[in-house]
């Protein structure tokens, strides 16, 4: 058991609650910094992919996990970011350092376009609307040949910032790592200030949020814009990582895997976004590895991956709605309060006194 003695109000919202937490995170950072030296290129490229997914998942989690607005169209914002960056750096030779935030801003602008009409939609209907937006963007990419080069896609180069070239995977890894750290810090700051609390308030009760002075219009669109900004930045990193982007990178399947990421990782937690990104990156690898061992009837099915996604999603929603992060909390709680863990500690309490449906 640990006891806390707080001397200042801001200790409530500090990034690391305990000294030991800080030590662990510094250790993790050191490991991440040393990783490329110890790993093969294949593993480094997986880590880069994880980093890119973490950024998308952070944004989507802010929108869906914290603000409660489901989006099935995040691949579209991802695409907007990727194409913005590819076109700016490719056609107009704008430096990457400008193109990266510009992709975020382009994503955010797309987010505003979706966010404003989405104000009137809730739940499933919002999911359908955002999914529709995803299809529209995919179709625009295919049809707008003069800009996007249609199905032939665009070639993208690795960025060069000043004297430093990020040509190799190992150097690009550090670039992605730096961006991920900035994005994590930003989202942590949003969540510990009035902005983040307003987002969560909207999720829990729109009526109460409004009567606290939270403008639903402003904050719902802001959530969409920030979330799409994250997807846009990630899209830019993705484009420069892949060397080549085409419409097939941004299908509905991609949107679904983003959603699976935050559901499996844990809705409404920053850790969850990270866990989910790691999980979703390794899942296809595990599936393709296991194909060899499965009976041919199953192993050679084209839809195996989608089926596994669906199964994983179902199992998590049924048995661990809080996702991997929830499981992580439980394990931590078990060890911190060693002999006192009870199975019911985390059981959801059902309450019946609410009589009015929102």
């Amino acid at each position: 058991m640990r006891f806390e003695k707080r001397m200042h109000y801001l200790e409530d919202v500090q990034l690391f609650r305990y000294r030991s937490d800080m030590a662990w995170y510094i250790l993790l950072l050191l490991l991440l910094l040393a990783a490329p030296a110890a790993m093969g290129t294949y593993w480094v490229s997986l880590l880069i992919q994880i980093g890119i997914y973490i950024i998308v998942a952070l944004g989507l989690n802010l929108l869906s996990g914290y603000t409660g607005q489901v989006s099935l169209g995040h691949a579209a914002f991802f695409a907007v970011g990727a194409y913005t960056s590819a076109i700016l750096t490719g056609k107009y030779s704008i430096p990457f350092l400008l193109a990266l935030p510009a992709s975020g801003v382009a994503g955010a602008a797309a987010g505003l376009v979706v966010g404003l009409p989405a104000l009137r939609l809730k739940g499933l209907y919002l999911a359908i609307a955002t999914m529709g937006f995803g299809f529209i963007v995919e179709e625009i990419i295919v049809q707008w040949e003069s800009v996007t080069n249609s199905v032939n896609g665009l070639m993208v180069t690795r960025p060069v910032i000043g004297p430093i070239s990020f040509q190799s995977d190992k150097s690009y890894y550090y670039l992605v790592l730096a961006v991920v750290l900035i994005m994590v810090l930003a989202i942590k700051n949003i969540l510990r200030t009035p902005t983040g609390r307003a987002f969560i308030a909207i999720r829990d009760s729109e009526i109460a949020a409004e009567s606290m002075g939270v403008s639903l219009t402003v904050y719902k669109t802001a959530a969409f814009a920030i979330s799409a900004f994250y997807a846009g930045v990630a899209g830019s990193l993705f484009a420069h990582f892949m060397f080549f982007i085409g419409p097939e990178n941004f299908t509905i399947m991609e949107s679904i895997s983003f959603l699976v990421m935050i559901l499996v990782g844990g809705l409404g937690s920053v850790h969850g976004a990270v866990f989910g990104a790691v999980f979703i990156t390794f899942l296809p690898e595990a599936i393709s590895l296991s194909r060899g061992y499965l009976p041919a009837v199953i192993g050679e099915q084209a839809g195996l991956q989608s089926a596994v996604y669906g199964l994983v999603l179902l199992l998590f929603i049924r048995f661990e709605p809080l996702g991997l992060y929830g499981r992580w909390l439980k394990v931590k709680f078990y060890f911190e309060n060693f002999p006192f863990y009870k199975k019911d500690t985390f059981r959801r309490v059902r309450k019946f006194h609410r009589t009015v449906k929102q």
Partner: protein
Amino acid sequence: MSDNGFFRAAGISIQFGGIKALENVSLDVKQGEVHAIIGPNGAGKTTLLNCISRQYKADSGQVFFQGKNILKLKPHQVVSRGIARTFQNIELFKNMTVMDNMLLGRHSQRATGIFSDILFYGKARQQESDFRLKVEEVIDFLDLQAYRNRIINDVPYGVQKNVELGRALVMEPRLLLLDEPSSGLNMEETQDLAFWIEDIRDDLGITIILVEHDMRLVMDSCDRVTALDYGGVLAVGEPKEVVKNPDVVKAYLGE
């Protein structure tokens, strides 16, 4: 400020389909008083409150608060004019801690934008600290210390009621609308509430409009009463007079 200019609702009507929930209702509240709205079920008490806080859009009528018509404002704008409210069926943020719920009460006082929040430096940092200072004051006032970091879902009903009252007080309103603050509370909790209502009026200088069924609470701590029935005003006056009013007696007990 002159007394009769503080809060005045005049000629409020609202209709849901064929039902006239409120018809030409007027309400005058003086600064510094506790004003109760009573009436049988379905009389339109909560509807009146919802019209004032703009959850419902009144079909006609005017609501003047400190000389300004607030009936044109959006619900979230009413708050910044200094009107806070609580709900009959607790509307707290269930998955947040007591602390975070009350911090949301400060939302209307925020001076930082989204961008300075992202940086969390200087003003945003100071603001966060100041918000907590105010919340701690209210926590002390309502004896909520033990629940500070508990999730709302895990706290008993009575405490949730207090947190909701606290969240409204954190806003430092000039007018507080309480919708059945004592419903679901036991005797002891209701007594605490009666004391708090007096303290809120006398020490914090907040004017209160409350919808209430518990007549003892109304008799003890309210200065004036408006009785409603079938969307119309039956009687206005001191509690003692109003309960003797034959129309009011008839509405509650029948002929």
